[in-house]
């Protein structure tokens, strides 16, 4: 801008000088030689002045141009430095196809979006391509990872120090277009180990389920004591007096229960008369087995309670009765299970809890087997093993034994 101003000013000055002399010369045509010389001198002086001005203007322009070139060069150097710095510490993000040529070195990561990246030089960070392929040509090198989404890594002799990772989707989420048959509930496989809170949760659930089982048993036991105490006593006496036989019969029965069921079905099925019976026997048989196991378990509980009371030597009427026997026996039978669930909540001795739970389950199984044997031997309590000794406390009270009078020795 300054250069233009100087030039314009010089031209205007020359024009003014020439313009002022022109009319004067034409008006004095018949002037003498001295006047002509003065005019000529004035013209030369004006030309010299204009030339000098022009020369100064040119010098000024040249100086300013030189300054501008220096500034431009400096600016370019700044841009170069900034670019190099950005590549060394950050990420170069490019769109469209890009080629890292032979001998070219990219200091940082390079990300190419919606295009292919061809590497013939060296990338000292990660090479990431989205929506395109990564082509590793002969001599191409990536010192970080090579990551491609929506494309693939095409290696034609290149080297990758890190991981070569590609990720591809299969379009939108797959939603069934037609209704399908309901699937079975999914299995759950825990990949992570159970935490301490899981142990507590399982322990509490175990305690509640054991207590619930005990309450159900106690309810059924109370019903049997109230409505069928003679039968319970008969089975209970069988357990006490014929323990070995009861156990053997119970064990044999538990092995034979399924073959006997099959045999029963076959026997009923091959006879015309048996077929209607079969319809009743099929559902009743499992019920009878479960009832025998439960009745036997309660009888064993009764035995445990009775035996414990005898050992204590306590004949307190308030406690020495069939209800107390059954409830106490159930509690004792379930105690290992309960203890197992409680100890299982403590992380570092959880294995002791597991052992106790296994032991509790085995005790229950053994008690049920023994009891079932006694149920079979006593024909569900209708055949007492031997005449029961008269108990003045229990048998004398009609509340607990309706047949007390009949069984009194002196009756």
């Amino acid at each position, binding site marked *: 801008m300054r250069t233009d101003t100087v030039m314009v000013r010089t031209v205007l000055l020359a024009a003014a000088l020439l313009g002022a002399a022109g009319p004067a010369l034409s008006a004095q045509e018949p002037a003498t030689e001295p006047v002509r010389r003065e005019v000529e001198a004035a013209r030369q002086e004006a030309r010299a002045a204009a030339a000098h001005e022009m020369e100064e203007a040119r010098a000024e322009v040249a100086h300013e141009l030189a300054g501008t070139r220096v500034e431009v060069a400096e600016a370019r150097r700044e841009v170069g430095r900034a670019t190099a710095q950005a590549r060394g510490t950050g990420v170069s993000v490019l769109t469209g196809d890009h080629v890292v040529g032979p001998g070219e070195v990219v200091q940082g990561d390079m990300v190419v979006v919606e295009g292919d990246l061809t590497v013939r030089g060296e990338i000292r960070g990660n090479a990431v391509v989205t929506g395109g392929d990564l082509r590793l040509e002969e001599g191409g090198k990536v010192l970080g990872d090579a990551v491609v*989404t929506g494309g693939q890594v095409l290696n034609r002799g290149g080297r990758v120090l890190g*991981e070569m990772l590609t990720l591809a989707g*299969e379009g939108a989420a797959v939603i069934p277009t037609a209704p399908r048959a309901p699937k079975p509930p999914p299995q759950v*496989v825990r990949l*992570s180990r159970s935490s301490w809170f899981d142990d507590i949760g399982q322990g509490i659930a175990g305690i509640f389920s054991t207590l619930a089982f005990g309450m159900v048993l106690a309810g059924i036991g109370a019903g049997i004591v109230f409505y069928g105490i003679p039968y319970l006593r008969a089975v209970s006496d069988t357990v006490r007096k014929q323990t070995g036989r009861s156990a053997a019969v119970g064990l044999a029965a538990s092995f034979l229960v399924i073959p006997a069921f099959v045999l029963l079905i076959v026997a009923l099925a091959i006879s015309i008369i048996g077929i209607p019976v079969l319809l009743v026997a099929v559902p009743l048989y499992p019920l009878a087995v479960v009832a025998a196991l439960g009745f036997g378990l309660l009888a064993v509980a009764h035995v445990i309670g009775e035996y414990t009371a005898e050992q204590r030597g306590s004949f307190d009427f308030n406690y020495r009765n069939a209800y107390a026997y059954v409830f106490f026996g159930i509690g004792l039978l379930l105690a290992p299970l309960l203890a197992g669930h409680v100890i299982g909540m403590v992380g570092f001795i959880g294995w002791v809890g597991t052992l106790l739970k296994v032991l509790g389950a085995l005790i229950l199984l053994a008690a049920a087997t023994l009891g079932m044997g006694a149920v079979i031997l006593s024909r569900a309590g209708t055949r007492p093993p031997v005449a029961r000794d008269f108990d003045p406390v229990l048998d004398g009270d009609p509340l607990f034994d309706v047949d007390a009078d009949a069984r009194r020795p002196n009756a």
Partner: protein
Amino acid sequence: MPDRGLGRRALLALVLATGAGCGSADASDAQSWRTVSSSRQKWDEKALDVKVEYGAGRLTVAPADRPLLYQFQMRYDEGQVVPVTEYDRETGKLRLGMESRDRERGLRVNRVRNESRADLHLARDVPMDLRLEFGAGQAELDLGGLSMRRLRVSTGASETRLTFRSANLVQAESVRMEAGAARFEAVGLGNARAERFEFQGGVGETVLDFGGAWDRNATAKVSMGIGALRLRFPRDLGVRIVKDSFLTRFDGSGLVKRGGAYYSRNWESAPNRLTVEVDAALGSIDIDWIDR
């Protein structure tokens, strides 16, 4: 290197998240299948410690044909699982597989078992320890021709076939196999060139085939819960079986009982011998002989 590692992981996570974000909507209800492929070239690795954890689906493992350290490709339901590919160059530890997104609820196996798939190829000439934990589904593991030093395969409710089609390039220290409620078949165990074999089975059908190129003596401990166990031996291998079983049928054809053990007839003259200790509870043990 460490300062770059963090940035690298962040960058990869960003890119993967961007790529994954396209189909992540309603991932909990609908299945969104993705395929991830991870591989590394061999540089100067001296040994590899590989751990593969695969919850459910179909898994194959085989030697790599190309000069790669490993190549792992997995098709997975993005809504349920996250692929895992971790490698530490310093220690040589390589971890591959899947993790459930919902650790509390675990993996809903039925949703992913039928359509999930993973294929792993491992370098032949890099000595390695391989631990493979497989949950439910089918697994086809061809580990012959690798440089296996130690192997441990654990399977859950699955159908697994482990084969050594060709000889192990190095002598192995141990091959340990664990199967839950499963059908498990191991073929060509002789090619493993292992000093010690162990098998622990829960419930199911198991076949242990000790065929292959034997070049050393070895021991095997087989513990079987409930199920059928079939043991196959090459005829030229000297075999001694010590059995401790309960309610188990034992078919010791081709064996002679001496003392408390069963011996093959060539026990004294065989160039290589295998002693098998079998502990079984309920089921059957059958012996087959392989003619070369």
